[in-house]
């Protein structure tokens, strides 16, 4: 395969569009799930909340304004073809320039502080982005991007379970995490679960799981069944839309897995609000 040259500016333009699009236009998978939930919601208040969320998402798309004021920290999963060379620049810098332009020109909120503990001064352009890059064979760059709100991010958790916990231990930890989150992460939520790998791989998989459309299933039918079972259990908790009571606490549970160590079974739960925003493009 021939080496392919891609201009840094083209990366910037693609990233800019992804962040504007994902903040204005909710995915079809989420909208379908919200509409279905609205039909099936037993609580009158819950039904009203869901119809307002649907109306909100339609207004945002029509007027091209952010559907949530928390336009998130910018997270990207990149599959970078090993035959690609970036011309006139550097890949990460081009990505961050795309984030800068999207948040500035797209009227997205700048929600990043440079120092986490002491200064906490806003960087005023939403950079730096969190970029997860995987080198793959090929001459294209595939980018999946999302703005991750922190109301739900703050409710996420990781636990280094060990093998004897088994599937029951995995379920218990996921359900405990969702129960503890209660009304805070803007239910109905999408639950991303990462199981296996190391400490950081489990967390990264959990985030990746929240980026997967909720109308898809894990390819392994055992995990697909676990996704269904967890969704049913979560919706028995009663928190409901906006936590004001009801039978729609979650609209999706996505599980991603990875090989792990003989001594371990890490489980990470990344909670995402109903504004589960992500968009994908290939350059």
């Amino acid at each position, binding site marked *: 395969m021939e080496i392919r040259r891609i201009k840094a500016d083209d990366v910037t333009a693609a990233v800019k569009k992804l962040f504007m699009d994902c903040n204005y236009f909710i995915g079809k998978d989420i909208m379908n799930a919200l509409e279905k939930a609205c039909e099936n919601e037993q*609580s009158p208040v819950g039904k009203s909340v869901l119809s307002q969320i649907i109306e909100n998402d339609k207004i945002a798309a029509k007027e091209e304004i952010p559907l*949530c*004021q*928390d336009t998130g920290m910018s997270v990207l999963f990149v599959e970078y073809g090993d035959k690609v060379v970036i011309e006139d620049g550097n890949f990460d810098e081009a990505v961050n320039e795309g984030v800068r332009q999207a948040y500035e020109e797209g*009227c997205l909120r700048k929600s990043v502080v440079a120092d986490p503990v002491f200064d906490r001064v806003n960087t005023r352009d939403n950079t730096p982005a969190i970029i997860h890059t995987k080198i793959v064979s090929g001459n294209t760059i595939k980018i999946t991007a999302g703005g991750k709100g922190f*109301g739900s991010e703050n409710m996420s958790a990781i636990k280094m379970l060990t093998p004897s916990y088994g599937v029951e231990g995995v379920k218990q930890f996921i359900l405990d995490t969702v129960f503890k989150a209660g009304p805070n992460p803007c239910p109905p939520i999408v639950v991303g679960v990462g199981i296996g790998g190391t400490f950081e791989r489990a967390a990264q998989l959990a985030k990746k799981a929240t980026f997967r459309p909720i109308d898809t299933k894990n390819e392994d039918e055992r995990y697909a069944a676990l996704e269904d079972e967890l969704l049913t259990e979560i919706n028995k908790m009663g928190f409901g839309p906006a*936590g004001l*009571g009801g*039978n729609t606490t979650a609209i999706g549970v996505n599980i991603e897995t990875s090989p792990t160590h003989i001594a371990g079974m890490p489980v990470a739960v990344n909670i995402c609000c109903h504004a589960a925003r992500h968009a994908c493009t290939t350059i």
Partner: protein
Amino acid sequence: MTKKITLPITDEDIKNLKAGDSVLLTGTILTGRDAAHKRLFELIEQGKELPIDVKGELIYYVGPAPAKEGYAVGPAGPTSSYRMDKYAPALLDLGLKGMIGKGARNKEVIDAIVKNKCVYFAAIGGAAALIAKSIKSEEILCYEDLGTEAVRRYTVEDFPCIVAIDSEGNNVYETEPLKYRRS
């Protein structure tokens, strides 16, 4: 039934509000979230005067997105209230009449709500574009350096919210999920 309230909210209004009531607020409200609360709280601790008078006011926990050209304000939905729990009782003791946010509050805040006869409203998290339709104008009052976290005064018309915790301490986040819990 939806109750319409014209601000500033009165003690009588608050007395009549019950947890679970749907409310439309019209008038002006303050805004503030994490960083502004931290600054206000530090001033209170030092016995210094605040740059804003919170007496009789409602404060909305929000960090809005920028306004698009032609819009009065940007999308402005509520942020999680529990992060302000450390600071809220001190503001309620100073005469703040209520808060608008989303999600549960801790015992100290609920006790301060009951003690001071205040109210906690919930707005719908993630309905920022819709909620912004009820915000007619904004003015930055202080802490402009905080960007989205600056303290603003919003003029609102039929701003939609629900009484989450009333002046007697009744709490929808405790009572309502139990009605639908099957586990």
